């Protein structure tokens, strides 16, 4: 598997980019729906990896290392967006998504696209770090330990943030149910 080395030429690193770009895009897409912005964030991720390649110690797989950088790039992006969009109005949700949300039938599964739309809007109500924690846990299926390592926080803090994020998400969704 291609991994970067301290004395790599940019051409060698391009092989690493080709190998891991799909994974990086998948992570970033969880936090940003716009594909052009995802591409910018992915480029930022690989540039950061290139600059920090001397710090990669080959003890853990490179995929974990680049994933961690991608999550941190996403977190910075969310913080910037939060500052920029502090005064955003209620999100515009599609009729189908709202229809599922207001349905009392608990056995009715939402369409994947509606679910993604609803979650994307509801997640904007959370703080950037709570959002990253709940995304890693519920959408990426990462363990508490992995999330703690990725974010550089304790496992207790991960559990607290995940619980708080779920409560806030439910509260945001209930607000839209009653609109």
């Amino acid at each position, binding site marked *: 598997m291609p991994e970067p080395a301290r004395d790599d030429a940019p051409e060698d690193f391009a092989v690493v980019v080709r190998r891991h770009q799909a994974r990086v895009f998948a992570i970033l897409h969880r936090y940003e729906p716009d594909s052009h912005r995802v591409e910018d964030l992915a480029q930022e991720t690989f540039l950061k990896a*290139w600059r920090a390649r001397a710090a990669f110690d080959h003890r853990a797989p490179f995929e974990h290392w680049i994933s961690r950088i991608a999550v941190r790039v996403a977190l910075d992006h969310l913080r910037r967006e939060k500052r920029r969009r502090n005064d955003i109005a209620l999100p515009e949700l599609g009729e189908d998504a709202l229809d599922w949300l207001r349905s009392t039938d608990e056995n009715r599964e939402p369409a994947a696209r509606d*679910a993604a739309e609803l979650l994307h809007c509801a997640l904007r109500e959370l703080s950037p770090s709570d959002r990253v924690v709940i995304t890693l846990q519920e959408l990426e299926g990462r363990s508490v330990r992995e999330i703690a390592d990725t974010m550089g926080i304790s496992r207790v803090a991960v559990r607290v943030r995940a619980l708080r994020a779920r409560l806030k998400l*439910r509260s945001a969704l209930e607000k839209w149910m009653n609109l």
Partner: protein
Amino acid sequence: MSRKKLDQLFRAARTVTGLGPSAGFADQVLRALRQEPPPPLAPPGEPALFDELNALFPRLAVAALVLMALGVAANLVLGASELTDWGDGVTQLSTQWFLLPKGF
């Protein structure tokens, strides 16, 4: 909203995958990497005392050998010419200089 409904939402959203990278993405990153400035070179710092001594060592060793050789040679010459009071003469001169009331 029930916990079950929230879990349904997560489960469904998990299956959504975004668009992958465009065909030229890696080349785009490569172009950006080529524009990256090279890492700064470490500024030359003050050489350490031991580095300076190491650099001077051959010359210092030669100088010490020359001094020792000169000393041995002088001793031999003085011994051969029977000028044994050379040391006494020097002592006498310096004593006189120190004891002069107005110096030179």
